[in-house]
């Protein structure tokens, strides 16, 4: 018999460290779960893709009318408002989709959790991949929108895009893991979540530029430090559109805070996951 698979089951004690080797062994399951969610979502291909485009486009049209035409909010750096808004909406929707799906993932997969062992982390982690596909489809439309408004993307911005995405994935996962764990324990969290997400959207510079807060430095600082997705959106706009320069200080804060959120979420999740099967 293979000696390398000998292991001991005993009562959990103290802080659990991540078992990377085990996670690697379950990589197939991770991919399969992500593929399942994507495949079910886009099973009726036409409707699935249309729906993925419909949401951000309609939101963009309505928000442009209300916040730009009526309320006179401008991008502040000369970028046409619809392009400016769409970049914010894309990143925001990636963040909120990951959050929502991750928070719900442990409940919607409760049948699995009660009947099969696998590293529980796989379930919420797979939702980040699913949301990435939902992000990629409307992102294609951004190219068309920029061509329409004759906006040429800056090279600096395109180069830094992977870092920005990593940052978005980390902070969305961090918050998502925390919510997934707490949602297992307290079933009313899922009812409060849509409201929370809506509130956070307004304290994120999605429909307005962060520069609008220059006269309120405390609030601006709080926003950039406590809400890393704000920094991601700001840097994405500043580097891809606008001036074409990377705001390294803002990016630094976002990276640091995303990492902190990710580790904190992971820690909380790891330390509650052992009892999921008992309470889910």
């Amino acid at each position: 018999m293979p000696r390398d698979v000998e292991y001991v089951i005993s009562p959990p004690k103290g802080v659990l460290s991540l078992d990377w080797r085990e996670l690697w062994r379950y990589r197939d399951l991770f991919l399969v779960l992500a593929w399942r969610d994507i495949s079910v979502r886009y099973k009726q291909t036409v409707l699935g893709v249309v729906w993925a485009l419909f949401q951000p486009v309609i939101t963009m049209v309505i928000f442009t009318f209300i916040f730009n035409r009526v309320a006179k909010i401008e991008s502040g750096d000369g970028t046409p408002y619809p392009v400016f808004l769409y970049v914010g909406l894309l990143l925001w929707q990636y963040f909120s989709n990951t959050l929502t799906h991750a928070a719900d993932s442990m409940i919607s997969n409760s049948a699995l959790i009660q009947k099969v062992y696998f590293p529980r982390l796989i379930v919420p982690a797979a939702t980040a991949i699913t949301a990435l596909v939902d992000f990629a489809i409307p992102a294609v439309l951004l190219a068309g929108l920029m061509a329409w408004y004759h906006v040429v993307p800056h090279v600096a911005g395109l180069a830094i895009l992977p870092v920005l995405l990593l940052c978005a994935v980390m902070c969305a996962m961090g918050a998502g893991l925390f919510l997934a764990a707490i949602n297992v324990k307290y079933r009313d969290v899922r009812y409060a979540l849509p409201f929370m997400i809506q509130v956070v959207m307004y304290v994120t510079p999605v429909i307005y530029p962060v520069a609008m807060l220059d006269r309120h430095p405390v609030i601006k600082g709080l926003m950039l430090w406590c809400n890393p997705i704000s920094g991601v959106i700001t840097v994405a706009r500043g580097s891809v559109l606008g001036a074409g320069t990377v705001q390294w200080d803002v990016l630094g804060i976002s990276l640091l805070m995303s990492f902190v959120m990710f580790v904190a979420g992971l820690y909380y999740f790891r330390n509650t996951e052992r009892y999921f099967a008992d309470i889910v």
Partner: protein
Amino acid sequence: MRTSSEMSRPIIDVQGIGKRYRIGARRERYLSLRDEIVKGFRRVVGRGGDSATDFWALRDVSFGVEEGDAVGIIGRNGAGKSTLLKILSKITPPTEGTITMRGRVASLLEVGTGFHPELTGRENIYLNGAILGMTRREIVRKFDEIVAFAEVDKFLDTPVKRYSSGMYVRLAFAVAAHLEPEILVVDEVLAVGDAEFQKKCLGKMGEVARGGRTVLFVSHNMSAIQALCKKTLLLHQGRFKSYGLTNDAVHEYLATAAPTSSFERPVQGNGEPTITKGTVSIPKDSGRDELDLAATILSDRSVRLGLDVFLQDANGTPIGLGGIGVRSPETVIDVRPGETTVRWFIDISGLALGSYVMSLLLQHPNVAMVDRVDQCLAFDVNRPPKGVATHVIDQRWGHGSVEFRTGIINVAHSPKADLPAS
């Protein structure tokens, strides 16, 4: 290379395993954050929260399993079998004790875990295989074998929501049956599917066990346990009772666990209607060859349910099923909030002499199981021969437990028949 000392080490070594559950005074399945905040506030104010009580679902259980053995786990409801399986398959951690496993474990606590109705048969094979711990390469290699075993090749690209329940179960079992772990942990998954398929499943399990794999098998079906397992662990109310040869364990189980003519049990706490009481009696007036039954169902809402009685003989062999409201909508039980007591009878005129054990299965007709109480009631058939018969057949004769009612239509004679020349 193996050394001889390693050879003698058991592949599964269970040492003093225990699992404690905390049951709140209020039977709530889920907590709500709002309630928790209110409770926290009360605690601060000094009015005290709910006192939780401890309940050991399993305690002080130790045993070892040698490589290649098939071991049965038996015990009545609440004996801790499911808890033990969940700990062995790492789904829930033990509160105390340790288990050393020396091999890859695959556990099969349910057939078709994770099947997605919208996905096709082909897609579900990959999904379910990955969930059960197979790698992609393994699934690809066994794909044709799985499809052949399940007999669904024509419907491979049809979403499984369009499958008949028989096809669904066959496909699900086929995936599971092609796992190749060193240790296989199986719950009563064989309780699904039609008789022919069950036989096929049992055959496959036997093959797995004979193929040198280590199998842990939980079942209420004593004949399946006896057919598959060399050794058996008997649990009773969360405690270790015995561990030894299967025949001895089954005997002890049937002897010590002999249930009575009535039972009472606590609410199950999952929010569903619960069977809380049951009685069985053989009517005094011997003219009726029937069994009188009564069951009390506790519910918090109005619901229409069916109740099945599942009968096994003294060896645990299934005899049959009979019920009210499950397959006959006009006799469905009208359960109201509070307690509902239903009395009914079953005809036992065809049963051989001997002891029988009953299980009660409460269900939404054709939808789902609501509650089940396994082997909760027992009765003896001990009646004199009727009519012109001289004997009543007896279970112990080994011909089975049902005596058929027979009658002569006519007997024909032909005196001129050609007898073979001798």
